[in-house]
């Protein structure tokens, strides 16, 4: 049996994680044996050039993909061999996602977008609406609930996405280039929001290739060719 890792407050832990893609005749080692752990309440930036494996890392950590070999512990539980339904369940109950291209559903209103995880969690309409309203308030979007995503600015759309990511009250929030489609001022606002959430106790794992953005995190994980190049600490805050 595996020793529970939550002992040392590790919320995410990879052990000799390998992800191998078959590209024609070639095998691509997107992750070539990564061992790393993130503590609860930490704020990580995963960095690296394109093709370094940072997106694969993100997909694995976000339970969107499975390892070829090695093990992944989420909140102390080995999730490496879970089936598709169980992974969906994990994402639904424990994880939140924020994407570069916002990924809102255009035909749904802001409120309905925020409510989406609650819908799959089986919440009733009234409770969901209350929660959506509160979350919209939290991310600074009160009064925009009945707009369509297309009527919003990029920054506003990303706020909706963050509100949606928070709907299920997740332990970990994954942010994939969250400022990639935003101008620098709006980008900063979004990062400030992430910092605020981190201070409220959420673990945040952010993928970015911009060093400026990465400085908002406590730790930077640099990837190259599917392995960890180096780990940097930004500030003296608790990791």
């Amino acid at each position: 049996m595996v020793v529970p890792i939550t002992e040392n407050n590790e919320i995410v832990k990879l052990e000799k994680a390998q992800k191998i893609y078959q590209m024609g005749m070639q095998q691509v080692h997107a992750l070539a044996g990564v061992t790393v752990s993130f503590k609860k309440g930490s704020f990580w930036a995963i960095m690296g050039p394109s093709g370094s494996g940072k997106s694969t890392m993100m997909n694995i950590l976000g339970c969107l993909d499975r390892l070829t070999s090695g093990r992944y512990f989420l909140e102390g539980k080995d999730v490496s061999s879970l089936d598709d339904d169980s992974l969906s369940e994990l994402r639904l109950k424990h994880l939140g996602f924020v994407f570069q291209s916002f990924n809102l559903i255009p035909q749904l209103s802001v409120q309905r977008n925020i409510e989406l995880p609650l819908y799959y969690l089986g919440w009733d309409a009234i409770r969901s609406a209350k929660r959506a309203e509160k979350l919209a308030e939290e991310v600074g979007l009160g009064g925009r609930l009945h707009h369509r995503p297309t009527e919003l600015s990029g920054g506003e759309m990303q706020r909706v996405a963050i509100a949606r990511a928070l709907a299920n009250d997740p332990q970990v929030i994954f942010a994939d280039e969250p400022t990639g489609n935003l101008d620098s001022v709006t980008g900063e606002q979004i990062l400030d929001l992430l910092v605020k959430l981190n201070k409220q106790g959420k673990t945040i794992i952010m993928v970015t290739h911009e060093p400026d953005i990465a400085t908002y995190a406590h730790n930077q994980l640099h990837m190259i060719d599917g392995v960890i190049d180096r780990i940097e600490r930004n500030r003296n805050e608790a990791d």
Partner: protein
Amino acid sequence: MRQTKIFRNIWLGIENVLLHKLRSFLTMLGVVFGVGSVVAMLSVGEGASKEALEQIRKLGSNNIIVSAIKSAEEEATTTQHSHMSIYGLTYEDQLRIAESFSNIKKTAPAKLMRKGSRLRERAMELRVVGTTPEWFELVPREVIAGRVLLPADQDKQAPVAVLTEFGARKILAIESTIGQTIRIGGDEFEIVGIIKSESGQAGNIQIPDQQIDVYIPMEVARKYFGDITFIRTSGSRTLEKVELHQIIVQVDDTKNVESTAGAIEEMLKRFHKKKDYVVSVPLALLKQAEATKRTFNIVLGSIAGISLLVGGIGIMNIMLASVTERTREIGIRRAIGAKRRQIVIQFLIETVVLSTTGGIIGLGVGTLIPFLITYFSGMMTVLTLAGVLLPLLISMTIGIVFGLYPAMHAAKVDPIVALRHE
């Protein structure tokens, strides 16, 4: 919880269908026509049966109608010159029929004549029928006023007359006319009743009373008017001797109707040298109705089948396109935590909403078609509850059958790929 979820899924489906109104409508057309055909088919079939039953009611369901006809060779000779033609049923035929078969309950004869008649100042030629009281039991009609012929009239050879609605209209008789004297062919009769009459043709059988204006007792008719009729046509004059024009036979049980009719036919053949009679069975109309129903079912059934198949494929096609178009949405839902099954359900419900909406529209179209059929062909059509529910059920099934593949396709979408999809 589960129920509200289904309602929300249905609502989501309706929203998505409404999002592309024209596209959804065009997609539905196949189902619309298919369901329309099914509705039309069922209502025409139902109408045919009902019409037949209605006709049989007018004719009497356990009746066999034996009618006199002028045979073809007779027709040819009489047109030449003055000549007496003798044909038709005889009094003896009636007796023989009544006595030969144990399962015959009653018989009623009809002897048809045209006689100049007069009621007060009104003079008209009326179609007069000599018959017995049994007639009114075998061809039951509502009595408007007074009474029908009674056995006593027959015994006393009473000169009484019962007008039908047609006759009453012609001679301008009303309820208060009862008791007055009508002159028929020079003789005086007392009007004792007015009864309703049915008109029209039931399949290829004539309604027995559609050519009758007034009934008088058989014995009176024979005594007063005899069996010979003068017929004046332009230029020539012919004589006809016909004893009975019609014999209505009532059989004890519906299941004996056909066999008895056959036996009567056989018997008449032995006593008649020429084919101057025809035996018709109202019950046969049901068979005719079944045949009509079958024909319509085959035609409309094939239209419905093809339309529904094409409609289903059309829906499947559009749903597949929709899945591709909404790959990103599927990816988002999956990333958030929707299970494959939930994606399947979402798309399946959407397809069912689409096909069922088509079904409802088709129902509207389908109820219009029977109206048109009735309007243009005079055929009776009936819309039953089953005729409404079955097509709706079919359209729902179409949605499930043809929605399953696109929905499975949607569920197979890899969220990682889908999220990168532009």
